[in-house]
């Protein structure tokens, strides 16, 4: 598995663990509705797993983006900042939020895999 999920509905793809990509899930974007603003972290900042690294705001509400794993932010999606609706139209692709240099691969392994996440969404 190269993509894992958090209970807070973020995904993280670790094909490159020095720049693992983080975004929100299809379920998350659907629950939020039309995304109109994203607050992205500063490149170079480090966060611990579970810390708030960003904010996504829809017309009706704001939601925190939690770090799926500990690490340093190495890139943010300027395209998403310019067009927040990418989080709705392509949440698993062009709507990614940021890339993180993962400091502890064990934290990644502890996250949910796709089938486990699907069960969580089904039961939510």
């Amino acid at each position, binding site marked *: 598995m190269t993509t894992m999920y958090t209970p807070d509905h973020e995904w993280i793809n670790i094909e490159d663990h020095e720049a693992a990509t983080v975004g929100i899930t299809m379920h998350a974007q659907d629950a939020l509705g*039309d995304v*109109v*603003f994203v607050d992205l972290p500063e490149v170079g900042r480090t966060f611990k797993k579970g810390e708030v690294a960003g904010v996504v705001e829809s*017309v009706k509400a*704001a939601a925190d983006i939690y770090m799926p794993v500990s690490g340093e932010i190495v890139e943010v999606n300027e395209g998403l900042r310019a067009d927040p609706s990418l989080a709705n139209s392509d949440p698993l692709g062009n709507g990614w939020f940021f890339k993180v240099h993962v400091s502890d691969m064990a934290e990644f392994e502890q996250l949910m895999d796709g089938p486990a996440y699907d069960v969580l969404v089904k039961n939510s």
Partner: protein
Amino acid sequence: MSATELLKTPLYALHLELGAKMVPFAGYDMPVNYPGGIIAEHRQCRESAALFDVSHMGQLRITGDDAARALESLAPVDVVDLAPGKQRYAFFTNSNGGILDDLMITRREKDFLVVVNAACKDADTRHLMTHIGHRCTIIPMPDRALLALQGPKAAAVLTRVNAGVGQLTFMTGGHFDLADIECFVTRSGYTGEDGFEISVPSESAEELARVLLAQPEVKPAGLGARDTLRLEAGLCLYGHDINTTTTPVEAGLTWAIQKVRRPGGARAGGYPGASAIESQLASGAVVKRVGLLGLERVPVREGAKIVDSHGHALGHVTSGTLSPTVNQPIAMAYLAANHALPSHEVYAEVRGKRQPMRVAPMPFAPHRYFRG
């Protein structure tokens, strides 16, 4: 039925069929949006016509020879001189001049139709029964649904169903058959657009909704779009922008208090909180509701603190969103009166950062009512 079970409007099954996302609101399970999303529904209403289910709102009939004066004893508005077929915005006040609820009153041939907020309807009914129940007859209408058809093409749609509704102008109403269903229609709404609110027997509500949704100009819209539309229109949401601690003067609603009910008028005072409201009418309020336009992109929402450039507290936001029409953050806030000045620049605190905003005139999107 358990205490936590949500109530359903007569259109509940239709909402599910249309794929609505349902949320609890004022004790009802209501559509927040349909699959197109809030922004698409908002634009639909600004550009064409949108159909809203507002059956959760309370409808009451008030009858009796003394009904108009009785209503005036609870609200600082002119009900006595309201002509048959005319509708008026009003509010019930408490003894401090705070607002218990805001409402619409329409004088019909034999009664007044009163439409109140869903969350307040039980309290309003008790309030009416307690204070004027001996002077007039108060008849809740749980057997009526309420549909709102709003937008620049609403009139073209509804006159296709019954040409007679074309006679109505903004804030008037009358009885009309729509698709052979007996309805009471007012030309009013909560979006800033031309449009209608249709009181319809519950058992026929779905049939009428389907007739309206079958018109090519019309799509359904939920409470999410209703909120962004009313905010752009500068219209207050009860429980947020106005409540029991805000007076009509602070809320900038003095336009709704007719001269005849103000000091010097023929029927001045005589409603709860008159002395507090009259004193504010004379000398001004300490805080005022204003519109705020965000100069950055960050949405500013209810509860955000407003400060000056030195960080001194000036007030707080009571509702806010990113406006789909002006594509900037918009909000309503209560500010210290000496800062509630046109174009005054203030800052909203959002997640520890100051976002610049400017006091702006409301509405944020122009009203497009049909005044004939």
